[in-house]
């Protein structure tokens, strides 16, 4: 339970001023639970020493001028690279205990529960490494482009960072989601907060050269080469197959920039592939090589992992698109509403097939729905922020969001998804997420079929 005495800015009134005689007796008898329902201001008073303390003149945080109002602040460039406020230490990338055995082949989740808008701060971008991460020296980094058959390119080439950064760039905002995001929840509720259910998700503005430009600069033969293999420079030298169609339409970017600066080392500095709408594993980090070829490669992460087990025992291979999905980020699991009354319910929606066109929100577990407001900009294969008004009356509620994309696809329920895919597929769980609110104001993770 939250210590409600920490709720700032409320004037404390003596409890006898607004509690009935009966209620005061109940408190005296140690029964405080009803306070959580609707008299939370009273909770603040009760948490203070039971001597009722009234702030008659007003809020001490207004009446007593604080040091930042009455003294000189720090000079410019005190932090040459700015840092978040010291009061923001709670929102960090975190691991899910017991999920993986070693930190070098693991995941850290993005704290979606506290983020706004659609851009993920670069330092909070989720991480997934298969063989640890390195800070690669950009002056020693090269990109090689070759063909599985010499006939597929006029010439295999190598480019330095100096050269890549002279080519005509594009900047685009895209989401990146791990194929295993929400994978822990296929069978049942397993983790408490949106950080762990949906936190293998981030969204950034990426800057770089369309891969198309580079392949054409090497004289690619699009008729023969219909697949691309991307390969990393780290120990795992991660490899993934990408369809040439996505390269030809200019979507796939060889990116060096992220949110206005260079990529962070954990996100592939100095070069990564951006494959919009496709699961994160294909966005090969520390990108060192592109091979064009005439068949898919069945690499370890498309033949042993990132394959989806179906109820008939077959594994779906080369499942790459992240289908339309959404989640309410606040209020969400592991959070506590402070009192009844008005709340802005907010979340994000995204689709690997294009733009989000609509998000509906239900407060009764999916019996009735209302359409939420979409915040602009609404972009192709990017997170889209939605908001909707809610007045909490103190009664139990189940909050859900349901996104629709420009193809008309409607995000499915757990029941619908499981009817087709069972519960063992690990990857690509895009079911509607439910958060249950109980009378105490605590929000928790539940699954509605």
């Amino acid at each position, binding site marked *: 339970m939250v210590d409600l005495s920490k709720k700032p800015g409320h004037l404390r009134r003596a409890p006898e001023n607004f509690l009935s005689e009966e209620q005061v007796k109940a408190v005296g008898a140690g029964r405080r639970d009803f306070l959580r329902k609707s008299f939370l201001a009273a909770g603040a008073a009760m948490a203070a020493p039971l001597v009722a303390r009234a702030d008659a003149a007003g809020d001490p945080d207004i009446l007593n001028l604080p040091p930042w109002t009455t003294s000189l602040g720090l000079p410019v460039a005190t932090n040459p690279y700015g840092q978040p406020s010291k009061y923001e230490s709670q929102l960090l990338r975190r691991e899910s205990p017991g999920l993986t055995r070693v930190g070098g*082949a693991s995941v850290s989740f993005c704290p979606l529960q506290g983020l706004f808008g659609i851009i993920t701060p670069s330092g909070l971008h989720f991480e997934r490494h298969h063989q640890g991460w390195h800070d690669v020296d950009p002056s020693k980094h090269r990109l090689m482009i070759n063909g599985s058959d010499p006939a597929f390119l006029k010439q295999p080439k190598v480019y330095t960072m100096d050269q890549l950064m002279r080519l005509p760039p594009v900047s685009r905002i895209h989401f990146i989601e791990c194929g295993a995001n929400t994978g822990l929840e296929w069978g049942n509720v397993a983790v*408490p*907060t949106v950080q762990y259910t949906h936190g293998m998700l981030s969204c950034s503005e990426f800057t770089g050269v369309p891969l198309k430009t580079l392949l054409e600069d090497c004289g690619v033969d699009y008729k023969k080469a219909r697949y691309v293999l991307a390969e990393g420079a780290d120990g795992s030298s991660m490899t993934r197959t990408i369809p040439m169609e996505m390269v030809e339409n200019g979507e796939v970017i060889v990116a060096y920039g992220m949110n206005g600066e260079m990529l962070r080392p954990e996100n592939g500095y100095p070069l990564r592939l951006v494959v919009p709408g496709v699961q994160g594993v294909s966005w090969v980090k520390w990108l060192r090589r592109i091979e064009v070829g005439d068949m*898919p490669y069945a690499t370890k992460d498309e033949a042993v992992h990132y394959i989806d087990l179906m109820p008939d025992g077959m594994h779906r291979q080369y499942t790459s*698109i992240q289908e339309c999905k959404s989640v309410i980020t606040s209020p969400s699991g592991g959070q506590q509403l402070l009192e009844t009354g008005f709340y802005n319910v907010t979340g994000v929606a995204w689709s690997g097939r294009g733009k989000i066109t609509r998000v509906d929100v239900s407060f009764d577990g999916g019996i009735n*729905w209302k359409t939420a407001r979409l915040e602009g900009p609404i972009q192709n294969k990017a997170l889209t922020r939605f908001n909707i008004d809610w007045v909490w009356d103190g009664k139990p509620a189940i909050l859900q969001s349901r996104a629709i994309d420009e193809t008309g*696809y409607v995000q499915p329920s757990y029941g619908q998804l499981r009817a087709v895919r069972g519960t063992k597929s690990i990857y690509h769980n895009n079911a509607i997420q439910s958060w*249950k609110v109980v009378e105490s104001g605590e929000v928790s993770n539940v699954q509605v079929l």
Partner: protein
Amino acid sequence: MSRFSKSIVAAALLALTASAFAFDTFKLGRQATPAELAAWDIDVRPDFKGLPKGSGNVQQGNDLFEEKCASCHGSFGESNEVFTPLIGGTTHEDIKNGRVGGFVKGDIPQRTTFTKVATISTIFDYIQRAMPWTAPKSLKPDEVYAILAYFLNLAEIVPADFVLSDKNIAEVQKMMPNRNGMTTNHGMWPGAPAARGGIGNGGKPDVKNVACMKDCKKEVRIGSVLPNYARTAHGNLEDQNRSFGPVRGVRTVDGDAAVARAPAQSAELTLANASGCMACHGLSSKIVGPGLNEVQARYKDQADAADRLAAKVKAGGQGAWGSIPMPPNGHVKDEDIKTLVKWILSGAK
């Protein structure tokens, strides 16, 4: 600006608006040399394009695996202690059918690598590029063949006297127990569909929800709620939310534990992480090697422990904690090893 460079720029600008760039439009980048291509182009495809020549037998593979892989994957590739097992869960019947029965019947106890993979090329490619985990790309082709021969023998796909080579690996692929267990009939491939020479059904989704708005169902069926252990397994959720704003995090840890924030990581722990030690050692508990606090507990009263342990860390070795060896840590500087051992003996935190 010279006339030459002007014409390049003009050509490039023209190309920018056109649909495709001509070859070498930018006069940037240069031709890759054959040696450069050989150094980096190491991928092996399912049709074995890219496969290096070579061979290795089961016994050699057994020895190599014990030396270089068993510390993490267990002696017979079956260890469950650290990672998902590589081998196990397949039968002779599966080898005949090319479908793993455990998946068909839905009763597979554990999805080992060999229950899933349809193509042996995948495993060759992966071991060659990424294993051993802490020394990737250190194996010669013959060694990869030998280790694969050993795997195939453990899975009872080939006999104990088998020699795997570039000549017969394609034949072996036809015996993989799950070779018929993959399907691409789905809508999640973002390229051309199978009907046009690509993969999948062209993006047709497999579930269809409709956006009902009112009285969509009679009752809400809850399938699952958060188990109590999971509520507390992720630390104090109060500390994972802001202390102001519309909501707070729920306090999920009682008393003092809730107040104590995670201390900042020590410089030594950072060094241990960077040196790869923490891949095998937990602070308090065993991963592959003993927990570092267990090491301290054993040696705390021995005056010469620091020097002995530093030498052991550098050279590697086994026997003190079990049969699993610690590989040599030659990549770590001597003074860093000293620092790390001192830290371990003073109760690493």
